[in-house]
C-alpha cells in the first residue's frame, strides 16, 4: 500500500516537473524578439542568404569598415558576408531591487539593435532578452537557456558582477562568448578566454580618481565608508584602500554598513569626529543618495571636505535625488553623461527623446557593447558556419576589436579581455557631472 502510494506520487511529480519545464521553454520562446527586417528563418542556411541578398542594397557599408577581405578568403562573395544574422542573448536585471540598472541597459540595447537592423547592409542582430532578477541562480538558468535552447552565438550581460561570477563559467564551459557591459569587479575576465567586458573595472577607474583627487585637493588623510556585505561595494573599497596607500594618503578609520541599512548617520558622525580631508565612499546607488544627504545636511560635514565616490555614485539619478548635497562629489567613470563627442551627443539626444531621461553609464556601455558585437559579427563572417564555429569566430573577432569608434571612445580590448580606454574623473557642479579640472 505504502509502496504503491509512493510510486503514484513520484509519477505525478515527474509529470509535473516535465510539464512545468516545457511551459518554461514555451514562455521563453514568446520573449524572443525577432527584428522586423528579418526575412528568413533564423538559422544561417544557404537559402536564408539568398533571400536576404535579394533585398540588400550592396555594400554601402564602407562607412562601417567591413572587413570585406575575409569574404573572398572563405569563398563567399562580399555581399553575403553581412547576411547571416547574429543571435544575441541579453541577460539584464529587469525586475526586483536592481531593475533600475537593467532597464537602462535594455533601453539602450533596444535602441542600438533597431539602428543596426535598420541599416541597409551588414549582419542583422536577432535579440533575445531575459531577466536575471539580480539572482545568481536565475542568471545561470538564463545562460543555459540562451546556450542550449535559443542557440545564441554570444551573450551580453549579466548586469551585476555577482551574477557574472556565477553564470559566466557556464558560458565559458560551453564555448559561448560573453560580453559584460557593467561588471566592474576584479576577476571577471579571469573566468576564461570567452569572457570579455567593455566596462572599465574598478582597478582601472579608481587609481586615476585617487591620483587626480590627491593632486587637486592635496589629500593627506581620509576616512573610508563602505557596505561590507555587498560584493560590489567591498571590492571597490579594497581597490580604494590599495590606491590610497600607494599615494601615501592616510586612512584614519574605516566605517562599514550593511546592504539592508538605510541610516548611515552614526557612521558619518564618527567620520566627522576624525576630521578627514575627504570621505571615500564605496556604495551602491541607493545608499549613495542617502549618504550624500545625511553627510551634508544632517551631520553637517563641511563642504570643504570632499566626498569621493565609487561607481555607485556615477548616476545622474543619484545626483538628481541628492540635490544640492551632491555638489562637489568626485566620481571616476568610464563615460561622462555630458560627453560632447559626436557619437555621444547623438546617443544622448536620441536616448533622451525616446526614454524621457538622459542615459547613464550603464546605458552607454550597453549601447557601445551592442556595436562592439555588431562589429565582431561583421568581421567574423558567420555565413555557413556551424553554431560552434560561429561562437568561436565571434570570440576571435572580439579579440581583434581595434579602435572601434563608440560612445566610450575609440574602443579596443586589453590582452586580458578588459576594456581599454582611459577613465574620466568627474566632479558634480550645478547638479551635473563635469570633468574634474
Amino acid at each position, binding site marked *: 500500500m*505504502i509502496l504503491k*502510494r*509512493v510510486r*503514484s*506520487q513520484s509519477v*505525478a*511529480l515527474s509529470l*509535473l*516537473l516535465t510539464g*512545468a*519545464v516545457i*511551459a*518554461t*521553454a*514555451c*514562455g*521563453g520562446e*514568446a*520573449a524572443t524578439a525577432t527584428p522586423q527586417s528579418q526575412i528568413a528563418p533564423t538559422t544561417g542556411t544557404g537559402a536564408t542568404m539568398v533571400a536576404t541578398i535579394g533585398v540588400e542594397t550592396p555594400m554601402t557599408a564602407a562607412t562601417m569598415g567591413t572587413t570585406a577581405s575575409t569574404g573572398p578568403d572563405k569563398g563567399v562573395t562580399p555581399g553575403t558576408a553581412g547576411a547571416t544574422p547574429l543571435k544575441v542573448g541579453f541577460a539584464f536585471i*529587469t*525586475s*526586483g531591487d536592481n*531593475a533600475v540598472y537593467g532597464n537602462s541597459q535594455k533601453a539602450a540595447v533596444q535602441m542600438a539593435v533597431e539602428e543596426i537592423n535598420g541599416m541597409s547592409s551588414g549582419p542583422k542582430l536577432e535579440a533575445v532578452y531575459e*531577466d536575471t*532578477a539580480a539572482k*545568481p*541562480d*536565475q542568471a*545561470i*538558468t538564463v545562460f*543555459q*537557456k540562451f*546556450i*542550449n*535552447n535559443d542557440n545564441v552565438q554570444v551573450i551580453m550581460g549579466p548586469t551585476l558582477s*555577482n551574477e557574472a*561570477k*556565477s553564470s559566466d*563559467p*557556464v558560458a565559458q564551459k560551453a564555448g559561448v562568448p560573453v560580453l559584460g557591459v557593467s561588471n566592474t*569587479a576584479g*576577476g571577471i575576465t*579571469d*573566468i576564461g578566454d570567452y569572457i570579455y567586458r567593455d566596462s572599465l573595472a574598478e582597478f582601472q577607474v579608481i587609481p586615476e580618481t585617487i591620483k587626480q583627487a590627491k593632486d587637486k585637493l592635496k589629500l593627506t588623510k581620509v576616512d573610508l565608508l563602505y557596505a*561590507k*556585505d*555587498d*560584493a560590489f561595494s*567591498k*571590492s571597490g573599497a579594497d581597490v580604494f584602500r590599495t590606491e590610497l596607500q600607494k599615494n601615501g594618503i592616510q586612512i584614519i578609520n574605516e566605517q562599514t554598513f550593511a546592504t539592508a541599512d538605510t541610516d548611515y548617520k552614526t557612521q558619518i558622525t564618527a567620520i566627522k569626529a576624525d576630521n578627514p580631508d575627504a570621505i571615500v565612499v564605496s556604495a551602491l546607488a541607493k545608499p549613495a543618495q542617502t549618504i550624500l544627504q545625511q553627510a551634508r545636511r544632517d551631520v553637517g560635514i563641511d563642504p570643504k571636505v570632499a566626498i569621493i565616490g565609487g561607481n555607485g555614485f556615477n548616476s545622474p539619478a543619484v545626483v538628481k535625488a541628492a540635490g544640492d548635497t551632491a555638489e562637489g562629489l568626485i566620481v571616476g567613470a568610464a563615460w561622462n553623461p555630458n560627453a560632447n563627442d559626436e557619437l555621444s551627443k547623438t546617443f544622448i539626444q536620441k536616448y533622451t527623446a525616446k526614454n524621457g531621461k538622459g542615459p547613464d553609464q550603464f546605458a552607454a556601455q550597453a549601447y557601445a557593447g551592442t556595436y562592439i558585437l555588431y562589429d565582431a559579427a561583421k568581421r567574423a563572417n558567420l555565413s555557413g558556419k556551424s553554431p560552434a564555429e560561429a561562437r568561436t569566430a565571434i570570440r576571435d573577432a572580439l579579440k581583434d576589436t581595434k579602435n572601434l569608434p563608440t560612445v566610450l571612445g575609440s574602443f579596443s580590448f586589453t590582452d586580458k579581455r578588459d576594456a581599454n580606454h582611459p577613465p574620466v574623473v568627474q566632479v558634480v557642479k550645478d547638479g551635473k557631472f563635469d570633468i574634474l579640472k
Partner: protein
Amino acid sequence: MSEFYNANSFLISLVGINAIMALSIYITLSCAMLSLSNAASMAIGAYTAALLTQQLAWALWPAVVAGALMSGLVALVLGLPIMRLSGVFLAIATLGFGEVIRIAIVNIDALGGSEGFRLNSGDRTIEASGWEVYGVLLLIAYFFSRLKGSRMSLALQAIREDENAARTMGINVTFYKVAAYVTGAIVAGIAGALYAHLRSFISPGDFGFQRAVDVLVFAVVGGTLAWRGAIMGAVLMTLLPEAIRVVPIVGGFNIKDQPEIFSGVILLAVILFLPNGLLTVALSLNRIRRPARKVIGHKEASP
C-alpha cells in the same frame, strides 16, 4: 531529451536541491519547531565542502559528508542551549543564528567575504550534476520513509501534539528536539555541499534570510505531515517563477516581475484552507481513503 536536460540542467538540479532543503526543514516542523537557520546550515555545508575540494583537493563525496557533519556539529553546539526555547522564541533564536553565520562569513577573508568564493577556477574541476543531486534526494527520501513508524518518528509526533504530555509520558523531549534539529542541519549541509558544486561561485548573499523563508514556504505549501509534501512543495514553488512568465501585463502593471506576490498568495491560501498542504489534495485525488482520512481528521500539524 538530453537536449532538454542541457537547456535546463541547472534548473532541474535546483529543484532537487530545494527538495532536499524542504526535507531539512520538514524534520523540525514535524515536531512543531520552526527553524529559520536552515539557510545558514546550508551555507556551512557549502563553504566546508567547497574549501575541501578546492584547497585540499578532496573528492566530491568525502567533502559532502564533511560539509554535512560540520553543519550538524555547529547545530549541535548551538542546539543544546536553544532547545529550551519553544515556539516563536525558538524561531527568533534560529533567525539570529542564521544572521550571525552570514555576518561571520562576510567577515572571514579566507572564505572570500562578501565577494564570494569561486570554485573550479583552475584545471581541477569537481562538479556535481543532476545525477548526484537526485541520487542523494532518493537516499534521503528513503531515510525519511524508513523513519516513519520508528521510535524517533513517534516521539516527534508526540512532541508535536503536546510537548508537556510527551514529557510526562517519559519521552526525552530535549533529546529528540536536538536530534531533529541536528538531522535537519545535516540534511541542509548536504544540500549546501552539492549546491556549491553545481555552481562555480557561492557568496553569503546566497544563504540569507530570504532563502530561509523560501525553504519554509516549500515545506508549508507542500504539507508538513509527510515528507513527500515537502518535496512536492519544493518542486512546485521552484518552478513557479518559470510558470508565471506567461502572465500578461495588465494595465501597465507587469505582475510577473513580482513573483513574491504569487508565492505569498499561494502560501496564504494553503495555510488558510489546506493547513496540511497541497499533499492533502494530492492524496484525496488519489482516492486513498485511509491515510487521507487520517491526515485530515488529525489534529492540525504545526504549522
